[in-house]
């Protein structure tokens, strides 16, 4: 793995610096983290790159992980434009974009930019759409304990006490929390997104933890139903962060997705 810092020029925003960890070589994937920050996908990227001939690029969203965020970079759409431009700069083709939670929302917005460089998307317990009766859990009103309870099928191996973290780590966690608010707002939804998704023609795999307490399974089904020909797949004994809790299931679902159960398309 190596990490590189790229400077991307974005119209109306200016130059944006983004740090990108680069794992493995081969078929390219862009892996986008959610509000839990880049470390929530790093282990998965390492595991995926070790098990298949894949190159997994993991950017840190500006504002997360202690990275600076330009003041004008304020929306999920801005992040999508940033990564679209990154793929241009790297001249990558046949890229599959994978995103978890807010990273899934960014992934959906990247798909809507319709770059030919992006050939497929994988939405893992993504937020972003509004589904009546199935709101995204209000992250900002939850205690840290409740966040862990809702994020994992079995939270115990992942539970930490933020008060025990060193000051630098606590500052990063506070920065992550602020960045979530800037990019996704408190509702973590865009009321117009679900309608826009209907214009997509891109191959789409929607993976959902069956124990997700942040965005429930019906929300996930609604996400898949909004995207023409998207395939929906539940992951057993898995919460909101499958790449952390059941990474082997996620890799299998992506790599072996040709073993299609055609009923998956008839929701």
């Amino acid at each position, binding site marked *: 793995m190596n990490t590189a810092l790229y400077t991307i020029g974005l119209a109306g925003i200016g130059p944006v610096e983004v740090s990108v960890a680069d794992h493995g070589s081969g078929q390219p994937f862009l892996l986008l983290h959610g509000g839990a920050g880049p470390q929530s996908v790093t282990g998965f990227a390492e595991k995926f790159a070790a098990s298949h001939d894949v190159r997994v690029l993991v950017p840190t969203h500006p504002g997360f992980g202690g990275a600076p965020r330009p003041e004008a970079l304020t929306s999920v759409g801005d992040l999508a434009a940033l990564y679209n431009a990154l793929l241009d700069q790297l001249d990558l*083709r046949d890229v599959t974009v994978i995103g978890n939670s807010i990273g899934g929302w960014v992934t959906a917005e990247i798909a809507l930019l319709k770059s030919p460089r992006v*050939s497929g998307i994988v939405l893992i317990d993504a937020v972003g759409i509004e589904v009546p009766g199935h709101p995204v859990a209000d992250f900002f009103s939850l205690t840290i304990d409740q966040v862990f309870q809702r994020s994992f099928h079995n939270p115990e191996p992942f539970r930490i006490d933020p008060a025990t973290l060193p000051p630098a780590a606590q500052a990063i966690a506070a920065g992550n929390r602020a960045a979530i608010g800037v990019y996704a707002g408190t509702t973590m939804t865009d009321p117009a997104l679900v309608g826009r998704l209907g214009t997509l023609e891109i191959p789409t795999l929607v993976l959902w933890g069956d124990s997700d307490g942040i965005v429930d399974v019906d929300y996930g089904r609604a996400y898949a139903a909004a995207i023409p020909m998207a395939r929906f797949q539940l992951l057993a004994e898995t919460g909101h962060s499958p790449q952390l809790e059941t990474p082997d299931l996620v890799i299998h679902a992506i790599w072996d997705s040709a073993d299609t159960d055609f009923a998956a398309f008839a929701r």
Partner: protein
Amino acid sequence: MSNTAVTRITHSCHLIEIGGRTFLTDPWFSTRPGYYQGEPIAVGVADLPRLDGVLITHEHYDHCDLQAFAAYRDQSVPLFVAETVVESARKHGFTDVTALAPWQEVEAGGVTITATPARHGVYEVTFVLRSGPEAVYFAGDTMLIPELAEIPQRLGHISLALLPTNGLHIRPANNMQVVMNAQEAAELTAILKPELAIPHHYAFTKGFLGDRLITSSDKNPHRYQDAARDLAPATSVRITEPGTRVEL
């Protein structure tokens, strides 16, 4: 008069030279998410030669990229198309658009163009171009259907056949097959008995995820060559890279 020749530009997009005229088939000059040639595009729209006609089998983007082809320098170039393409062709500015139904024919610069039957996921026609004793059959991406056996009976000897071979299946449509496969293309070769056959429509990919979720296909044209060797030994099968001009 120059020889009959074919240059595969990419996928099902060819330049066919016959009777001293040049025709373009199923234009595809760009890419979109989930639609990739899987091989080079040997000639860009700006570098196309002067065309005497364009044949379009159906409206699917990988056969009917009118948005890109609209940049061709002469929008009065005659288009001979499936009827489902007419409206879109006119919307893209083409002024000389003729719909041909199966077995209808027209003449273009001394070359007789006959639409022939097809079956695909949408309405489609295929085409035979004839000039004197030489005839080229362009099969678009049809399935093998019994009606195709009428081609030599109705239209005489075929010299050169351009056949799809990837046996494309659409997974979400209950894995429905929509394009003939290598074995079926070889069976059609045995029916048409051309001197030369060139496969196309095999390198196409929907990308890493699309090839897993949406389509399955055979990307190896050698399977057709092997099958044709058994079923149609008198026909020479030539697998051609995009940009290679092959004379009959």
